[in-house]
């Protein structure tokens, strides 16, 4: 458990810095509904239009623990435990687009798009004090305060159905918005926990130590879990049927919006901004929550006190009386992990179109420049507050059917994240692939994170 926890310290799994503002791809509409749209119609190849996967390591990596260097693995784990803190985290995100389509309404020029994708999102902060207590125990050093609030994690599997519009308001401004309905399959959250465990040395106390559990408030809420757990006779087929039903609006539902804009400044500078997944999910079906609350001090058992042939200890009852544990089915609401993106782009390298335009985008007026550079920022709201990342990027249209974007991303943890996106068009058929942390691919064991997105579209 400790090793697994250590190896999960990941980077920003929902930051798609390569796809953001890559206006030739319809998937950029999911990151900024107000992006420039240079096509009249698109349809993603069903189930293959976007696969996104990210897993990573922050603070330590596989190599730090498993390097074949002759050092004792237990020493390496001890070092890692000391190095990590409770703001380090694991994130894992996987998305699979089932459907993605869009078309331009010639009457009003608006571009409508919609679709559905499945998402799995997990964040777990490193529970440093729990790990320390489990790995080292409570005796070194005595007096250390173990923060039970270190237990912070959240996971959800859901389907997202979305529909949005994009409109070029004038020559400078393009805006867009998207409505999302979340149909949740299962989730849990353990984000509102507090309390401490401490062992104090007592020189003048009743015993050698005093063990204190102070103001414990541990909460774990689940939805979509109990029905599957409790029915032991449920078959695999029935489980599949139940999960599909939940994916098709049969489970807990939520609502969210995306909105964004693109604004042309002077001298080919372009600014963009978007907010995505501003929404919530109401958990009212198949909910089971567990709570543990209270305080308790323990100094051992007092004996002998008086001549007494037998005295039944009430230790367990005392604990139960002071530390109350409860299971409830109360509804609760969770916020989606809202993302904010922004960019400042400078277009340059004007395209010299002297061979006639048979390219798929609308006109060279809209793909006027072959190259661009700029900066992007990303932020995502998480249980311990927002996370931030910044990227420098370089875009280049190599030629009509091949465009590329390279990014150099810096976030709280990684300072050498180089990414590359390639997008190929052969007639109406588009294929793109994006990957970051390329410098670590030579030995993934040393990678702090790795992210891949790829997909196929038909773009008209």
């Amino acid at each position, binding site marked *: 458990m*400790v*090793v697994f926890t250590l190896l999960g310290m990941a980077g920003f799994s929902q930051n798609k810095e390569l796809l953001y503002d890559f206006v030739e791809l319809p998937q950029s509409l999911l990151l900024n509904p107000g992006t420039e749209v240079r096509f009249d119609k698109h349809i993603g190849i069903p189930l293959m239009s976007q696969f996104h996967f990210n897993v990573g390591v922050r603070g330590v990596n*596989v*190599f730090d623990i*498993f*390097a*074949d260097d002759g050092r*004792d*693995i*237990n020493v390496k784990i001890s070092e890692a435990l000391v190095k990590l803190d409770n703001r380090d985290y694991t994130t894992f995100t996987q998305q699979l687009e089932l459907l993605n389509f869009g078309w331009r309404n010639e009457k009003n020029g608006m571009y409508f798009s919609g679709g559905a994708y499945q998402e799995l999102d997990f964040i777990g902060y490193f529970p440093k004090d729990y790990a320390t*207590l*489990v*790995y*080292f*125990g*409570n*005796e*070194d050093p*005595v007096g250390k305060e173990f923060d039970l609030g270190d237990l912070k994690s959240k996971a959800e599997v859901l389907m997202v159905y979305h529909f949005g519009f994009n409109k070029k308001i004038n020559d400078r401004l393009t805006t867009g918005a998207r409505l999302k309905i979340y149909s949740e399959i299962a989730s849990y959250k353990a984000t509102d926990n507090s309390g401490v465990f401490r*062992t104090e040395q007592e020189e003048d106390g*009743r*015993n*050698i*130590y005093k*063990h204190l559990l102070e103001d414990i408030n541990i909460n774990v809420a689940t939805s979509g879990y109990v029905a599957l757990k409790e029915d032991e006779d449920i078959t695999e087929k029935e489980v599949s049927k139940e999960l599909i039903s939940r994916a098709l609006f049969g489970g807990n539902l939520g609502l969210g919006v995306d909105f964004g804009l693109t604004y042309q400044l002077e001298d080919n500078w372009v600014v963009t901004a978007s907010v995505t997944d501003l929404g919530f999910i109401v958990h009212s079906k198949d909910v089971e929550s567990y709570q543990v609350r209270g305080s308790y001090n*323990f*100094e*051992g*058992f*007092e*004996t*002998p*006190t*008086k*001549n*007494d*042939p*037998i*005295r*039944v*200890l009430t*230790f*367990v009852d005392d604990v139960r009386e002071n530390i109350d544990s409860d299971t409830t089915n109360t509804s609760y609401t969770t916020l989606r992990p809202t993302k904010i993106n922004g960019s400042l782009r400078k277009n340059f390298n004007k395209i010299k179109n002297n061979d006639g335009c048979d390219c798929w985008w609308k006109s060279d007026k809209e793909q006027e420049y072959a190259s661009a550079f700029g900066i992007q920022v990303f932020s995502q709201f998480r249980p311990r507050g927002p996370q931030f990342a910044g990227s420098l990027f370089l875009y280049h249209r*190599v*030629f*009509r*059917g*091949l465009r590329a974007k390279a990014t150099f991303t810096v976030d709280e943890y990684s300072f050498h994240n180089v990414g*590359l996106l390639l997008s*190929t*068009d*052969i*007639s109406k058929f588009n*294929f793109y*692939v994006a990957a970051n942390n390329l410098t670590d*691919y*030579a*030995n*993934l*064991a040393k990678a702090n994170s790795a992210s891949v997105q790829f997909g196929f579209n038909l773009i008209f």
Partner: protein
Amino acid sequence: MNTKKIALISTSICIAFLVLISCVKDVDFNQTKDLKIEPVYELDFVYSRIETAKFTNPVGGFMPVLRDTLQDEFFSGDVGDKLLKAELFVSLENSIPVGFDAELQFLDGNDNVIPISISPITITVPAGNLGNEQRVEQTYSFILQDFELLQSAEKLASSVTIEGNDNDLDGELILKSKAIYYTSLLDE
């Protein structure tokens, strides 16, 4: 060669390059077999503060032994399975001008003494004075077989025996103790 073919070939080369260079090397995952998670936990055990007045018989007169028995499942569950070793640290501090013997014993449900290797746990402290306390500390180590025997422990019998027959002396006898559990949380 037209641009479509170039685009296709370029992208394919990039993907192939990524796949070919990506690898995991210079690591040895077999090290997990050497993994040990062996935390040490120290927990208070028994304590007491005794004045000589406690050696007064409730029906009158002096009694030389203070005896008390606690009933509980001290070693319930599979705690013993996770133990590498365990120790019991006992401290007696005496400011009373007579000596004392303290004894601890684990009993089963029928009040039979469980014959663990360190049973009976006895400790003797000499006479002390206020301002010149005598302190004796003793650590007892359990052996592996003790953990199995202790699964049947249901009672803890404790007694303190006073030397002499005076129950009106100044001072205090302070008993403190802790158990030290050396655990192994991974199955062999």
